[in-house]
């Protein structure tokens, strides 16, 4: 059977994931937490928010692994509204797939492929041209292999792993 085509794959550097959930139905919690992380100059590399789930409101975010200690400290100290619970995973990564079309089918194929190989999915988010999956960092290579096995990738695809890391500096040129 002909494999579905995807436009490419991109892999993140090592991240950590925080899962905040609680009864407050106000989106001001997301505003408060994103403000706290901005004040710590922490980039949120992945975020999903569902305030209307049956059980509770849930915010999931991923930040660089080297921000794990500072982020967990600030979330525990200032970021948790009454009744909210914070859990985390210290070592995760994001694998982003660029489908040409049939995004739901591609999602399904990946769920079957990863499920067969016990590769966990801790979060998913789509953008205009991509589907991003959060998984355990130690599973990333296996997850890439599973995707390469399941889909037809272009021969001249971009490198899978980032070669440049960007930091945002406070120093303004010319100051």
């Amino acid at each position: 059977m002909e494999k579905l085509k995807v436009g490419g794959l991109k892999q993140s550097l090592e991240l950590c994931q925080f899962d905040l959930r609680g009864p407050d139905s106000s989106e001001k919690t997301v505003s408060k937490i994103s403000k706290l992380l901005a004040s710590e100059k922490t980039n949120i590399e992945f975020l999903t928010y569902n305030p209307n789930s049956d059980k509770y409101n849930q915010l999931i975010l991923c930040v660089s692994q080297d921000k794990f200690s500072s982020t967990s400290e600030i979330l525990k100290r200032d970021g948790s509204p009454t009744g909210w619970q914070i859990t985390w995973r210290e070592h995760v990564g994001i694998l982003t797939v660029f489908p040409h079309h049939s995004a739901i089918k591609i999602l399904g194929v990946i769920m079957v492929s990863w499920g067969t190989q016990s590769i966990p999915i801790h979060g998913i988010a789509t953008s205009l041209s991509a589907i991003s999956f959060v998984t355990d960092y130690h599973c990333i290579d296996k997850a890439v292999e599973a995707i390469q096995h399941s889909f037809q990738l272009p021969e001249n695809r971009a490198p899978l792993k980032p070669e440049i890391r960007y930091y945002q500096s406070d120093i303004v040129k010319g100051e």
Partner: protein
Amino acid sequence: METIAVYWEPRIKTYGFQKLTDLAFVEFSYPVHEMKSLGEVLSRDELRGVNTKFMIAQESDGEASFIFCLPVEEGKAFRESLEKNLTTHRYIYPVGIIFFHGPHFGDRYGIADAAFSTLSNADIEVMASGCSSASVFLVLVQDDMDKAEKVLGEAFEVAK
């Protein structure tokens, strides 16, 4: 190799806001240990033409909750497939999505703060959000879309 990108903007630049309206919002949960069987349903050919405009999945307590936003006709086919093969779901119609991206959004802090604080200050309810691959996606009550575009347009600078 370390590259330091320096940004200082009185207002964060974006490449503009895009809106999608008249979408169907479909939410359901599924046991994490049965993810493979959900994948088997989603990978069926009957859903090949279904084009989701937004999707997030979150895991907690052994369950994964999924939200899809789809054009209404495709949403109908998707719901039929869910009803036939899976479980109960929550359905809302109509909803809208506003989404945007900008220079190095994936590498910079403060973008989510600017977006969520702006909506919060304007008392606009966010029904769901997904930020990945340097993009910000916000699912809103359809009636709030114009107001959201206005306040976000004041908070962010749209590149010309």
